[in-house]
């Protein structure tokens, strides 16, 4: 029966309908057009940085084609990497970022689990509150933070100003709220029956978190890690305000303060420093993307 009806339909003169394959083809064309456009837009600056980093100071200031290197040289790289300061900045940034990411993930995963699953009095308000703190601009916090530092110095004698490790305490105030928020979202998307099943299977809350929630919410965990790392690696305002000595600086501030002397911009080294500084986040993205397996929860429940 069905076959007969189908062939009848084919034989009948076709009315002018749209075509699914045609509209899909057009959608694809437009997608590629914009993809290429965005790729050009976002790749131009790093490519320009790379080209400039291979030029000598003389070639940079000469009126030649800025998109071509006539006499490629590695002198910027050699100078930057043999200069002690750049490596100190790099080390400071690395230690700060690794510590901040660790602290952030421990706090926000535990907090998110509690807020998403252990329904207690005020948990919903607290969850919103966590997110609201993220919305406060960091520049507003300079004066309160200076005051707090002064208070800490006066009461305990511990000087928090001008130390790179102070940033390890400071950055989580930026990263924890947002990461907690991301993780609450991911944890909330895990079906309730999954932790109930674990509970009946005999898991404690902590075992439920480590053996069920963290593996299932791994994509979210990675997203939060990437966010925390990016924030702490690229943070500019806090280190600019709270660290001053050269040996206490982190990468973004270090490059700007040591490679710009008065009105003299050492463009070659600035570009090289920025390029090398951008490498760790790139490597981490590339590495973690392999583990970012979307749809990991597929099959947990009906759907």
């Amino acid at each position, binding site marked *: 029966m069905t076959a007969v009806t189908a062939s009848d339909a084919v034989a009948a003169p076709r009315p002018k309908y749209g075509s699914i394959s045609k509209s899909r083809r057009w959608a694809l064309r437009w997608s590629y057009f914009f993809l290429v456009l965005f790729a050009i837009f976002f790749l131009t600056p790093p490519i320009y940085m790379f080209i400039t980093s291979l030029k000598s100071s003389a070639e940079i200031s000469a009126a030649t084609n800025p998109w071509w290197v006539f006499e490629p040289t590695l002198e910027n790289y050699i100078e930057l990497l043999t200069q002690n300061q750049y490596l100190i900045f790099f080390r400071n940034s690395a230690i700060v970022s690794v510590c901040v990411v660790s602290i952030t993930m421990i706090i926000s995963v535990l907090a998110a689990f509690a807020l998403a699953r252990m329904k207690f009095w005020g948990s919903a308000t607290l969850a919103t509150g966590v997110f609201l703190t993220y919305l406060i601009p960091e520049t507003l916090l300079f004066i309160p933070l200076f005051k707090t530092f002064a208070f800490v110095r006066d009461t305990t004698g511990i000087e928090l100003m001008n130390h790179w490790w102070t940033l390890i305490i400071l950055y989580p105030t930026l990263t924890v709220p947002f990461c907690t928020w991301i993780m609450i979202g991911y944890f909330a998307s895990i*079906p309730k*029956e*999954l932790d*109930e*099943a*674990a*509970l*009946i*299977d*005999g*898991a404690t809350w902590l*075992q439920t978190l480590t*053996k*069920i929630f963290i*593996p*299932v919410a*791994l994509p979210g965990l990675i997203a939060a890690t990437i966010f925390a790392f990016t924030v702490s690696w690229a943070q500019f305002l806090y280190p600019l305000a709270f660290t001053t000595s050269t040996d206490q600086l982190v990468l973004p501030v270090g490059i700007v303060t040591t490679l710009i002397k008065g009105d003299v911009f050492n463009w070659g080294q600035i570009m090289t420093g920025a390029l090398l500084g951008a490498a760790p986040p790139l490597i981490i993205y590339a590495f973690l993307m392999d583990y970012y397996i979307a749809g*990991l*929860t*597929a*099959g*947990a*429940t*009906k*759907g």
Partner: protein
Amino acid sequence: MAQVSLRKVVKLYDQTPAVRGIDLEIADKEFIVLVGPSGCGKSTTLRMIAGLEEITDGQIAIGGDVVNDVPPKDRDIAMVFQNYALYPHMSVFENMSFGLRLKRVAKDEIRRRVDDAARILDITELLDRKPKQLSGGQRQRVAMGRAIVRDPKVFLFDEPLSNLDAKLRVQMRTEIKKVHQKVRTTTVYVTHDQVEAMTLADRVVVMNGGIIEQVGAPNDLYHSPQTKFVAGFIGSPAMNFLPCRIEEAAGALRVRLSDNLSFPVPEDRTARYKPHAGKTSLMFGLRPEHITEVPRHVEPNQHPFEVTIEVTEPMGMETLVYFTIDGTEICGRVNPNAGATDGGKMKLLADLNNMHIIDDTTARVL
């Protein structure tokens, strides 16, 4: 030995009662099905037995021990959820052995138990797969396997078949019954599907509005419902209800359904219905299967009457016929060859041996 007993169990959600003081004794090895419409408190009751919901008032005991304050993991129960709740990142083997691994059971013991359960459920070849590589029915088997390997005192099933398609549901229903016959563990099973309840249960508990309407063997519920709700809930299509009056004339009783339709009450029921003669709040109940075409041989207490059929629904093995008596729609089940036609007149037979009279003010079957 694992009997489960619920005594005066109450559950309030912010002062809204979900379960209003139920008493239930479940014997060891018994298969109990809690059935009722959504919001009747059946799932809440199950979750209270599991320990996933706190009890507002009353007492729950498993195997003689009161477990009101015992966390789920120490109650020695296993639960199968409606949406399977398999751990998506673990293989079937890991899913099934998760509870045992947490209890630090020896490795070869785990292997043995998982293999046994897998054999019972016929999922041995699936042990290395991840849940997402399984079909709905296979996932449900794994969820059952996870319960079986624990060898718990009580199995709890929370609408385990609701997510499966109709054909698979019937298949898995039989499967569950077979598994219970093999492992003989006390089972509490929640469903809203009365067919599931009837086919699986040793005893069915019909719940409505947070209370137990009736507890009984499937056939008892079908033949002797105690309340109007049970009478209407068990059986498909549902029992027909019609306002009626009991009339007394010359020592015999008649049940009057409309101005021109009345039937004599079977003699064995006369004494039971006599005190209610003349009451205006009575309902007459008769199942569609007891309204049939007129056969060649008519038994006592079966009475023919003529109606105009409004709609017929051929089902293959039978035809459902719909007609109205005094504005109330009535359904009957007749033989497909009985000649029922839309809009045609037909002689039907009411089997009053299976009639029920309900007092509408108390909603109880007399």
